[in-house]
């Protein structure tokens, strides 16, 4: 199929070089893309929020497709545990800034595109400014406050928000912020209070899952740029990887949406940590829970003190490593509190100290007086007392 010829234009991104024509030949020979479509891709400006699990396939496929202007926003460094799913990075990138390692990888894949990096956390103070020079924002973040921030900033600045999210082996995808379409708040007006959606132990993710959902986000972004096919505006795509099933739910613009509805009450970016109840939670949990450090615990055990170690992690974590604690998973604690002797001194621990802080708070309310939280959990025990205990 012959490529269509285009009249000469003078703006940047108006023509394709010989190299580009060869590079994108498999696009150009499709009538759905052609020279016109490839030039749209070249002129497109896409900002990726997050270069992790979702950002990996997203960045790679947008770069491969020839999206001319990519922005990458991430403040994090590559961690060893990222390599299970964040396939833009290699083992030699561990410790490097993610935006730097991602830029290198994407520029190697496609040196013809412009890649700008923003090594910063996205905040209410910088979001509108960052979004200004881009047309499509792709949300690859991993927490509720940022998702609401991205959504609100997109609606307030008239940008499309290509949304994807995952949990263990389930994914969601949609396109928010389109002119007549819903926004994220139309679907979820409020975030879950912290602690109510399972975290820590029940978290984790099948590495390839963000590979699939991030690729779907890349596909939607490209279709929006080309103006092809049916986008996910007004549809929530649900993906269950274990069953290998896709389902679709209808999304409507909520006429009462405070952000994009008929009577808007949100006209500025807010404090999203506060919106998600996180500030209040942090204040509460740091004030009331008595703590013991791993070194202090070790000293007391060596002295022969009679301490009862309560491990509130899940059974599969206990199999990875343990320090001889009595296992009662946090969720079971209310039912199994009779297994504990309140006349003994009890030290509760989990992986990092958060769940065990909840356990201590719960037990104090139940009348236990001699109870401490192991600060930093079994991770800190491994760092400070016994490096033979594996970290996970």
């Amino acid at each position, binding site marked *: 199929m012959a490529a269509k010829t285009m009249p000469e234009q003078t703006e940047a991104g108006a023509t394709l070089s010989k190299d580009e024509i060869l590079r994108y030949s498999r696009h150009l020979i499709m009538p759905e893309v052609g020279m016109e479509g490839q030039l749209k891709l070249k002129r497109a400006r896409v900002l990726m929020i997050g270069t992790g699990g979702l950002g990996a396939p997203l960045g790679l496929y947008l770069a491969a497709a020839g999206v001319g202007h990519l922005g990458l926003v991430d403040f994090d460094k590559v961690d060893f545990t990222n390599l299970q799913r964040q396939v833009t990075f290699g083992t030699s990138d561990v410790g490097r800034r993610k935006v730097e390692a991602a830029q290198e990888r994407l520029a190697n894949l496609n040196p013809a595109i412009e890649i700008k990096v923003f090594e910063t956390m996205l905040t209410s103070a910088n979001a509108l400014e960052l979004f200004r020079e881009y047309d499509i924002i792709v949300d690859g973040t991993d927490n509720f406050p940022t998702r609401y921030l991205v959504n609100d900033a997109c609606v307030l600045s008239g940008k499309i928000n290509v949304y994807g999210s995952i949990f263990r082996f389930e994914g969601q995808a949609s396109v928010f912020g389109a002119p007549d379409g819903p926004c994220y708040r139309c679907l979820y007006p409020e975030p879950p209070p912290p602690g109510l959606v399972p975290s820590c132990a029940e978290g984790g993710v099948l590495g390839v899952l963000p590979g699939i959902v991030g690729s779907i986000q890349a596909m939607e972004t490209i279709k929006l740029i080309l103006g092809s096919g049916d986008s996910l505006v007004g549809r929530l795509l*649900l993906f269950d990887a274990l069953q290998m099933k896709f389902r679709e739910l209808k999304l409507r613009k909520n006429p009462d949406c405070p952000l994009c509805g008929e009577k808007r009450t949100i006209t500025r970016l807010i404090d999203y940590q506060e919106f998600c109840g996180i500030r209040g939670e942090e204040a509460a949990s740091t004030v009331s829970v008595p703590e013991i450090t791993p070194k202090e615990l070790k000293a007391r055990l060596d002295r022969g003190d009679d301490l009862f170690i309560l491990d509130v992690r899940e059974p599969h974590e206990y199999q990875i490593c343990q320090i001889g604690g009595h296992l009662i998973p946090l969720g079971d604690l209310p039912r199994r509190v009779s297994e504990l002797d309140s006349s003994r001194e009890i030290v509760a621990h989990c992986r990092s100290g958060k769940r065990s802080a909840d356990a201590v708070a719960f037990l104090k309310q139940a009348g236990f007086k001699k109870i401490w939280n192991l600060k930093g959990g079994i991770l800190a025990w491994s760092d400070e007392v016994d490096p033979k205990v594996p970290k996970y």
Partner: protein
Amino acid sequence: MMTVKVMIPTPLRAYAGKQDHVDVAAETVGQALNSLILQHGELRRHLYQDDGRLRSFVNVYVNDDDIRYLQKEATPVKNGDTVSIVPSIAGGAGA
């Protein structure tokens, strides 16, 4: 009474005996959810606020329609309908 399938989303399967769906007999969405909670009591606090209203970060669909735009929990269900519970999830970069 109609028989409907209630789909349990991943984050809540731990509280529903690890099942991905539960079959219930019901005439309305509200009855279907009540029936679900009778079988799996731990789900109540995840789905409902103390005042008995559905939590706002949980959406419920009958087939592919959001009940907020139908008759909410009074939405009638037919044999073979699917009631889906769809909570917000946030995993992405660091999940």
